[in-house]
């Protein structure tokens, strides 16, 4: 399996652990990520707020480069471009989608691209998020077969954030309100997955820079919810979510008088650990809230199952009414 790879600015440095771990995991799984040569920033959520056409041209340059570099490789006419950052994934897939919808926009964008000797045909790339590739292309079976050190006893809160599952322009692979693919992936690694109702809620995004109070409240809700369900850690799949929950956790504590110490790791870091890689090889140690105490649970002698979590389901008695049937998960 070979994919075009668009790391995005965050993975170069602040989320370096994400890049390191996903590359290490990919090597274990036999997946090849070929970085798009000379990619540029996707514009995050800021560029589009300043100029429309320049923002679309900015993203389209990446699409054009990626299409040129990946299409036709391995005999597949339509190359696949993988983005691990949720914001990059959204921007790339959204621009591709809107260009397909609006020939006028495509025309303008291609006029701009022509100034750099490039052009892009909407729909000629398949833009995917890393999680999608891991659960649907690699598959749970292959992941399970690669596990060497199951994460037994580790209670994780799977956190999807926003932009992977919403708005799902082209590659919707999970429920936009209550996704479950990361839950299942974590269970495949042997971890205990706690219920996390806010799993697809917002981490505050760029609000940390615009209104600190608003942002810290959003982060607090997530931490509280994870703490309520006694999660040992939150796993994320987006550099922005990781940064906000991790780097601002102390600010939340000081603002709200709380004492949260919940490590925030990338899902690929946990995959790497479960595959038996040493912590350093998956970038452990770069987080603000130290993950090592939690990870001690999956050391050589994993501690016994944690104390029972509060039961969410109501007490059953003779008079209880049946619960609605839900389609089988998995």
């Amino acid at each position: 399996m070979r994919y075009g790879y668009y790391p995005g600015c965050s993975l170069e440095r602040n989320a370096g652990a994400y890049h390191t771990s996903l590359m290490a995991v990919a090597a274990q799984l036999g997946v090849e990520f070929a970085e798009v040569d000379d990619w540029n920033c996707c514009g995050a959520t800021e560029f589009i707020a300043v100029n429309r056409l320049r923002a679309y041209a900015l993203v389209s340059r990446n699409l054009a480069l990626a299409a040129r570099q990946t299409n036709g490789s391995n005999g597949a006419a339509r190359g696949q471009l993988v983005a691990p950052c949720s914001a990059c994934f959204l921007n790339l897939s959204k621009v591709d989608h809107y260009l397909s919808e609006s020939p006028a926009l495509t025309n303008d964008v291609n006029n701009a691209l022509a100034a750099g000797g490039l052009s892009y045909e909407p729909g000629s790339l398949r833009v995917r998020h890393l999680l999608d590739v891991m659960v649907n292309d690699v598959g749970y079976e292959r992941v399970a077969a690669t596990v060497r050190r199951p994460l037994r006893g580790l209670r994780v809160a799977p956190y999807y954030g926003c932009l992977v599952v919403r708005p799902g322009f082209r590659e919707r692979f999970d429920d936009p309100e209550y996704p479950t693919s990361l839950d299942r992936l974590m269970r495949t690694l042997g971890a205990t997955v706690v219920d996390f109702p806010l799993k697809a809620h917002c981490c505050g995004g760029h609000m940390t820079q615009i209104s600190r109070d608003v942002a810290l409240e959003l982060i607090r809700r997530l931490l509280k919810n994870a703490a309520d369900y006694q999660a040992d850690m939150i796993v994320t799949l987006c550099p922005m979510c990781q940064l906000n929950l991790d780097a601002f956790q102390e600010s939340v504590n000081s603002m709200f008088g709380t004492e949260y110490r919940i490590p925030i790791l990338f899902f690929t870091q946990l995959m790497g650990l479960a595959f038996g890689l040493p912590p350093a090889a998956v970038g452990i140690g770069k987080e603000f809230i130290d993950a090592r105490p939690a990870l001690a649970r999956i050391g050589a002698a994993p501690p016994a199952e944690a104390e029972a979590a509060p039961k969410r389901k109501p007490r059953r008695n003779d008079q209880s009414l049946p619960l609605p049937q839900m389609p089988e998960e998995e």
Partner: protein
Amino acid sequence: MNAETPDRARHAHHATPGAEHGERVGVYVCHCGHNIANTVAVEEVAEWAGQQPNVIVARDYKFMCSSLGQELIEQDIQQLGLNRVVVAACSPHMHEKTFRTACQRAGLNPYLFEMANIREMGSWATDDREAATQKAKAQVKGAVDRAVRQQPLEPLYVDINPNTLVVGGGIAGLTAALELANAGYHVYLVERDSSIGGHMAKLDKTFPTLDCAACILTPKMVDVANHPNITLLTWSEVLSVHGYVGNFTVRVRKKARFINEELCTGCGTCVEKCPVRIIDQNFEVGLGYRKAVYRNFPQAVPKYPVIDTEHCTFFQRGKCRACEIVCPTDAIDFNQKDTFVDLEVGNIILATGYEQFDARRVSQYGYGRLANVFTSMEFERMVNAAGPTAGRVVLRDGVTVPRRVGIIHCVGSRDKNHHEYCSRACCMAALKFAHLVHERVPEAEVFNFYIDIRASGKHYEEFYHRVLAEGTHFIRGRVAEVTDAARGPGEEGQLIIQVEDTLIGKQRRIPVDMVILMAGMESRKDARQVAALFGLGCDYDGWFTERHAKLDPVVTMTEGILVAGACQGPKAIPESVAQGSAAAARVAGMIGQRVMKMEPVRASIDASSCSGCRICNNLCPYHAITFHEDRKVSEVITALCQGCGACVAACPSAAISGAHFTRDQVLAQIEGILWDARQPEVLWLEPQ
């Protein structure tokens, strides 16, 4: 140029279109007061028309549809010997019938009349006098050229079998069946479930009068069961439909109940003794239990239980037989097989109803994930005295009485992600629920979350006011999400309804104990298969298509197939009953005529030109085309044909012709309508 020979510019004597027909056409151009004359130079059109081949007389007149205008046509037919009439006026949908009747009065076959629509599609659609006049000439020329090729046609008559099939035993079907039976006609009522009553049988009270549903429904159910003119076939399904209006043959499968109906007294001992208890997903919508041998409810009609072979221990493991042992009349018959009956009927009324929208699909409301989120139908069963909680309003634990109840409107309705339409009945049901919660739990607070309250029915608005007066809270806003993730101490252990209160423009979080989702109505999952079976249309949402939304709401495009109730679109009980009665009245009217007159716009196959290729064989939505294996030709059964022309266009050897829309008629109209764009007559070409 002859329309029948598209590419042979060779017959000199055919140079004048239609000349070979030698027909005598009269053209009448209407002023329609100023409606046409202001924009179209009507005199000019008439004068020009008078110079066209075959046209004997062309006149313009103030109001052609007036009695004087009609007399003008009648006089000309008789005095000038016209054998074709063209009127250029309004839309044929407006006055075609008027002028056809005038022709008929003067002794001219009405199908030798043709209309050019120069008002709706001419003078009213533009200000450009020159262009409108030019277009009117083209339309007149098209009509004249078409008319000379029109043929006299006679209407078709078919006998009507007085028996009727009603499919579906909900309130609409029951009403239709009873109306017809009371009028003295025989009815077969086919119901898929083990008993009749439909959704209404599950309800406790009905809005806005708060009548007890069972009190008004069960007498009707018993009437149906006992009526000498009704043959009730429950636990049965229609397998096939053949024939045409007045003469349908319908095959019905009666599924095995494993109960001998001759012997069963309906005592219910078998149900009582059956050791298998399972969640009832059908009648109790998952909120209650039933046995493996069961009746939907104690007053079920018919009274006979049915054995669910999927859960019955005997059918699964060959042991048990408890029911057989306890039955006092030996009515249990494990060897019973499905049986098939063929019914001969003249008309069919479909009253197959709706399904409730699956609330799991709006996942932000947490149904299936959050225990104390209920659907509206679950709540109906809960408040029903005969339901799983004997009418007590309680949480999922079966004990706790909710103090705060949130009712969320428009779940799956008015939502382009699911159904764009409004389900009509849920607003009123939500008001009813609010009232019932107050009635059963006087100290409870109820919150209604709504986009708009749709209370447009007799005494509906008054009911809304009554519920307002009872102290129900109304928050205008479509709920964003229901969550159990508490943000702070005030929210712990409760369900939080997050919503924008649009009237104050602020986001609010309302903690409640119980949430009721007003799930909308949607068409039955098999609606499309049923539609195909009976040869009628469905809209995108799967509702059956009526002939005319306003003026013909219970008749479909297929003669003899009618619809009633929610299978045609979301409806509450009163509208369903009204439609059931209306459908019955239409059928009774048809039966009363004994024979039916049908438009002769039908297809027919010239057997000597048919090569037996069978291209047309599966094109007919009404199964009107049969293939004769012996002679290797296909034939159109005239009475079944509805005249759409799909087969006519498909026939590769043009062996099928569609009366009144024949190939040469349309081709001639094309030539006529393009009179000013066509090349002047070309005969032989010089070398290039």
